[in-house]
């Protein structure tokens, strides 16, 4: 919708949480993102009570780690997506040791952006990326959604759509190239 708050708005809310433990700002973030994270997890097949629990855990992570949020690297939506995705893999897919490994990767990224003189490319305009997703050819759009919103592996997608594994992968590659192109396009 046109009234959707932008990245600047969310980084201001995060700054208030980080600097002052501002609960009003925290609840603005909660009101917007909690239901979206909940829907995302429910789509992945997470039972309702567990999804509620994981959403609370994701927001608590934000409360504790607000100082780690760097708006120049990723939007708040992307940051929360990562947190929720990691909780899903740890709690639901039960891939052991996933959370510490992701923490390690995060720390490497932080160490690196601190070392670099120039700020990394700022997070992409969400609207431009959203439009690029909407413009994907139907098959590519379907595969991208099966990946992200149903958490299906290449082999599962291949079996479900009766499509060769190689075609699944090449379609995903083409989709990723298009979406990356939209992120890099001059604004």
């Amino acid at each position: 919708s046109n009234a959707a708050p932008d990245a600047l708005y969310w980084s201001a809310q995060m700054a208030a949480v980080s600097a002052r433990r501002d609960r009003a700002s925290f609840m603005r973030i909660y009101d917007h993102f909690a239901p979206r994270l909940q829907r995302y997890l429910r789509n992945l097949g997470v039972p309702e009570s567990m999804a509620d629990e994981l959403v609370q855990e994701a927001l608590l992570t934000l409360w504790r780690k607000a100082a780690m949020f760097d708006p120049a690297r990723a939007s708040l939506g992307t940051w929360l997506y990562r947190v929720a995705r990691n909780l899903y893999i740890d709690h639901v897919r039960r891939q052991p040791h996933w959370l510490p490994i992701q923490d390690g990767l995060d720390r490497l990224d932080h160490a690196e952006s601190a070392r670099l003189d120039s700020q990394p490319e700022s997070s992409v305009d969400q609207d431009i990326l959203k439009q690029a997703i909407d413009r994907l050819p139907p098959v590519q759009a379907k595969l991208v959604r099966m990946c992200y919103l149903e958490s299906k592996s290449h082999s599962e997608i291949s079996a479900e759509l009766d499509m060769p594994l190689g075609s699944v992968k090449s379609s995903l590659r083409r989709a990723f190239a298009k979406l990356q192109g939209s992120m890099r396009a001059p604004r």
Partner: protein
Amino acid sequence: MSPNHHLDDATLLSYSAGALPAALAVVASAHLERCTTCRARLLDADQIGGVLMQQQRVDLPSEEARVAMLARLDVEPALEPPAPPVDVVAEADPDRLPSALHPWFGHSLRALRWRRVAPGVQRILARDISGGDLMLLRIAPGSKLPLHSHRGNELTMILDGAYDDMLGHFGPGDVADLDGETNHQPVTSPGVPCICVAATDAPLKFSGWVARTLQPLFGF
């Protein structure tokens, strides 16, 4: 030194989506630890996930849920302590395995206990991994592996030594991200054994009678 061979776009996308089989995800994590290029590409993939997550149509949270959330904040007053600095010295230690492999194989390359599975080939299988097979392979220098193709996905990362095949030269940190399209015959470099971590989500198919003889030895 940064790697020359990287994760496939389709692999990165699935990693970001939390949809990569567990064994492949371990090898992908090991490469990501050593590859800033792929970490930047992963952030792109995560942005796609972020947009898709936010596109969901939703209602406002209930008053009950809001109250429960605020109550949790009361018992979580303390800020997370600052993250410890990354141990850069340990990262550069050639004996140190990537962190993602520690739970499965320990920390040290030298401390590994190999089992011979074929002439010139030793292996350690990861136990209790769901979603595919995960193994370390140690292949004698100057060995020619049997020609084979891949029925599913196979992701291999070089930890020490090197090999060459039709796709190029693969040294430490490089990943070979292969599927059914590829039919290849790696030849390990002379000097030191080639040690790699490999994950598959389906058995390999070897061609020819020699390969059929070797296949049970590899146990793929």
